[in-house]
């Protein structure tokens, strides 16, 4: 049994005291960030990346992964207790979670979320373990044409799944690709778009872009209307669900896990789409469908399982293909490159300890989350009411010091300010920054694969359509875009985002 041997290797990597510590630190920070208002996972991971550069690669990635799924978890706590989703994937949890809290069942809702998330996390971890090797094996046969088409598919999916105008999302992707090309051209060494600035010779740092577009721009936007955050937090009486509750949550957790796992692999979505879909489907399928919106336990169990499963399975394309499915995964890829690991299908075979260590650490991290969250819920509740006017200067300090320490140059600080300004302008114009960041990271890769593919085909662009896998990937992407621009689907998409 190769799988068992691999998982064994994973445990021996993940269970070293140092890695356990970083896993714990990651989920702790992640939960904290999920609970704190106005700070999303992308900005946080960008902010904390400089801190992880000094760690060994395995520990760094284990910690970053912990931050990501920890923040999903913390987000649901605030959804249930104060009706404020800590981040986008837990928006749906507010619908029934907060209603349960109003009925004095906050503790039960939290336990449901915890149990659902843990189960989903376990299943998703197993799925990664099962599918990663075969997928990487297929990917090893990919030529440049296939990788090019895969990137195109990923970008098109990110466009379809972003909010606002499709046309503008396409523009953001193209702009991101262009920005990604700044710096020395790999083949000729010619400096492109650097304006003679030596700090740009290696390109624009992705941490700088992410901090500016997600961290700084978000702060300016939040300052537009500093809403009064309700500090009335629901009392938690009993954490223990009744026998009836247990019975009612089983099926939704199973369905939520399945939906979340499947949708998490899709590029561009991660956990958000899964949570929405699981809630919508559960509402239709459930016997208690009419209770939805008034505090139905199914309405917490399904989306909570789905978002955790999705957060986990979104690692599959990142780890096996080297193609990120959302901005957080894009940052992880950046972190791997800085650590000297070339992301792609060869990671599993060349760095098995790293790969399996990360996979197993996710399961351990989920275990930590239960321990962190249920007994220590009182502490997190207090975090919910930290006022934003203390929080945002702290975020700025971390961004400033973090970005300065990257290359020890002031230039990166100015560049971050510039991207903050640009990000805010785009926020005002309803253009989402997520597809742009994804394109920014994929730009140089896409150019390189296109070059190689066309070199092989002697300049014939038909190579992308003649190779079956490449053609299929492109067809899927075109299908997604066409479907999203059809009037009937277009309306559905609008509705889905409004909910």
């Amino acid at each position, binding site marked *: 049994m190769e799988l068992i041997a691999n998982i064994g290797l994973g445990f021996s990597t993940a269970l070293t005291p140092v890695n356990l510590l970083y896993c714990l630190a990651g989920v702790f920070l992640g939960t904290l960030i999920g609970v704190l208002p106005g700070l999303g996972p992308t900005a946080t991971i960008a902010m904390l990346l400089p801190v992880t550069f000094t760690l060994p690669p395995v520990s760094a990635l284990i910690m970053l992964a912990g931050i990501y799924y920890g923040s999903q978890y913390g987000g649901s706590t605030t959804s249930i207790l104060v009706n404020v989703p800590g981040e986008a994937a837990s928006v749906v949890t507010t619908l029934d979670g907060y209603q349960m809290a109003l009925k004095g069942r906050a503790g039960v809702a939290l336990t449901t979320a915890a149990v659902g998330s843990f189960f989903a996390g376990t299943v998703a971890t197993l799925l990664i373990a099962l599918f990663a090797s075969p997928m990487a094996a297929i990917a090893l046969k990919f030529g440049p044409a296939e990788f090019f088409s895969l990137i195109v598919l990923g970008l098109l999916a990110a466009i379809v799944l972003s909010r606002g105008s499709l046309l503008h999302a396409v*523009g953001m992707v193209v702009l991101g690709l262009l920005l990604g090309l700044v710096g020395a051209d790999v083949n000729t060494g010619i400096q492109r778009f650097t304006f003679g600035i030596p700090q740009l010779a290696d390109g624009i740092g992705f941490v700088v872009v992410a901090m500016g577009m997600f961290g700084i721009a978000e702060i300016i936007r939040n300052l537009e209307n500093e809403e009064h955050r309700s500090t009335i937090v629901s009392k938690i009486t009993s954490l223990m669900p009744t026998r009836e509750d247990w019975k009612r949550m089983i099926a939704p957790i199973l369905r939520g896990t399945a939906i979340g796992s499947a949708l998490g692999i899709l590029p561009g979505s991660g956990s958000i789409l899964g949570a929405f879909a699981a809630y919508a489907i559960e509402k239709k399928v459930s016997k208690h469908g009419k209770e939805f919106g008034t505090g139905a336990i199914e309405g917490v169990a399904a989306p909570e399982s789905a978002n955790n499963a999705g957060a986990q399975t979104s690692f599959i394309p990142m780890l096996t293909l080297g193609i990120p499915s959302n901005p957080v995964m894009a940052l992880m890829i950046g972190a791997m490159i800085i650590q000297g690991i070339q992301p792609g299908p060869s990671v599993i075979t060349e760095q098995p300890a790293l790969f399996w260590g990360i996979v197993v650490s996710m399961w351990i991290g989920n275990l930590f989350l239960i321990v962190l969250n249920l007994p220590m819920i009182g502490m997190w509740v207090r975090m919910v009411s930290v006022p934003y006017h203390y929080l945002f200067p702290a975020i700025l300090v971390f961004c400033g010091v973090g970005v300065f320490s990257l290359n020890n140059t002031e230039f990166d600080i100015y560049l971050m300010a510039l991207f903050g300004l640009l990000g805010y302008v785009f926020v*005002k114009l*309803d253009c989402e920054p997520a597809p742009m960041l994804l394109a920014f990271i994929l730009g140089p890769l896409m150019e390189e694969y296109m070059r190689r593919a066309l070199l092989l085909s002697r300049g014939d662009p038909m190579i992308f359509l003649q190779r079956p896998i490449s053609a299929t990937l492109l067809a899927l992407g075109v299908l997604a875009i066409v479907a999203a621009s059809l009037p009937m689907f277009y309306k559905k998409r609008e509705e889905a985002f409004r909910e």
Partner: protein
Amino acid sequence: MSQLIRNGKDFWTGAIYIVFGSAAIIISRDYGMGTAVKMGPAYFPTILSILLILIGVISLVRSFLKQGSPVGAFALKGLVLIITSIILFGVIVRGAGVIIALPALVIISSYASSRFRWQYALVLAAGLTVFCILIFQKGLGVPLPILGSWFGQ
């Protein structure tokens, strides 16, 4: 003019895309196009720029045809204070050191909040500065200039 534009967001997004696209085409003129078989450094950027300009033009045309929501007001106070505080931090961090640059960053940016109070901002500035020096300089070994070159360090 403003009566003609029915969708401010479409108009300005289109304008930004056209500016970026045109600039990229003009700058990459000198890089060398090459051919599809042996692509020059300008090949991919030029394709992207043409695409971006095209999207910009469609968006611009659409802004005259289809009704949409106007661009909301900019939070100027927040925008100016936050961006200024970051740039100032960059300008003085090496010269003055973090012991002055960080409190400046915290106090100027805090002023953007409607709930700004001097006493809280000063405490926050002191706390964050000490925290950063401990974590980054002592803990992680990042070479932060605590006292900068202006003080003869």
